[in-house]
């Protein structure tokens, strides 16, 4: 049986048994949409909030970056072996993360 002919009776069954009650529900629970002005306010206010959050995140990122960089410089200066070990560990972790992320996507693509 082809995929299409197998799907049609399912759709028919759904239309016969479920569609009307679901449409009834849509009708009964139709919300009154707020006015355009309210949506505009929501858009502008949320943009402002997001922008503020982005600046805060950028600030934190720079702070963390400066801290890590200073620490790494100190480590390279005082304990070179530990510095190399740290760099290798971070590189291995990054490779594993990238592999897990893209590997999963690739497997999904093959199955799909």
């Amino acid at each position, binding site marked *: 049986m082809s995929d299409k002919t197998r799907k049609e009776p399912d759709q028919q069954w759904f239309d016969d048994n*479920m569609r*009307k009650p679901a449409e009834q*529900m849509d009708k009964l629970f*139709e919300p009154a949409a*707020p006015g355009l002005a309210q949506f505009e306010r929501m*858009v502008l206010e949320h943009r402002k909030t997001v922008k503020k959050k982005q600046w805060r995140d950028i600030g934190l990122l720079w702070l963390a970056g400066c801290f890590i960089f200073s620490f790494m410089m100190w480590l390279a200066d005082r304990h070179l072996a530990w510095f190399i070990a740290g760099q290798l560990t971070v590189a291995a972790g990054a490779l594993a993360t990238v592999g897990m992320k893209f590997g999963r996507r690739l497997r999904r693509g093959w199955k*799909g």
Partner: protein
Amino acid sequence: MNESEKLNVIVIERSEKGGGEALVDEEKLLVKLAVRGDAESLAELLRRSYAFLYQYVLKATMHKARAEDITQETMLRAIEKIATFQARSSFSTWLISIASRLMIDRARRSERERKWLEEEKGLHSLRYDMLMKQSDWPDALDALGGLPDSVRIPVLLKYYYGYEQNEIAAMLDIPAGTVKSRLHNGLKALRKEMAGHVGQDEERAGSTMV
């Protein structure tokens, strides 16, 4: 003349022409302006999609409070991500896709038992509201409410909204095979549940005859 004023002129011209085609063109134009950062166009798109989105989320969650919450969160996400919207699908499809992922993420995060209790409570309150508004609560909605979110969402998207399996897979970010099996299991469960309700109704009718 700024972008919004230009849009108003075009919209008025289009509405004078009338017809569904004009509406589609108008939406495309609104999307274009919204992607460029025009707040008024984005607000208009959100206003137009609000009822549709809420109704979809309500059917998918069967829980009024959660539906309101997710509708609002979806709109906020849309405001954040509008610059990345490539208009390959309609704006409402994009919103549905955001809402569906939010619902699935939340379902994953919440504990199973608490979720079940919430769903039961949500279904009771919906049933009460519907009974207050009209005569009865259809068995079909009970059956739909009994499905887990992860199954109910693809079933609604496929059979109620008419999306294809691969579109649903992309919207929910799951493999097409998973969508297929969830649709199969979902419909099987609905059929079983509905057959049970019919059996109960017949029994009840038989006992009143006796």
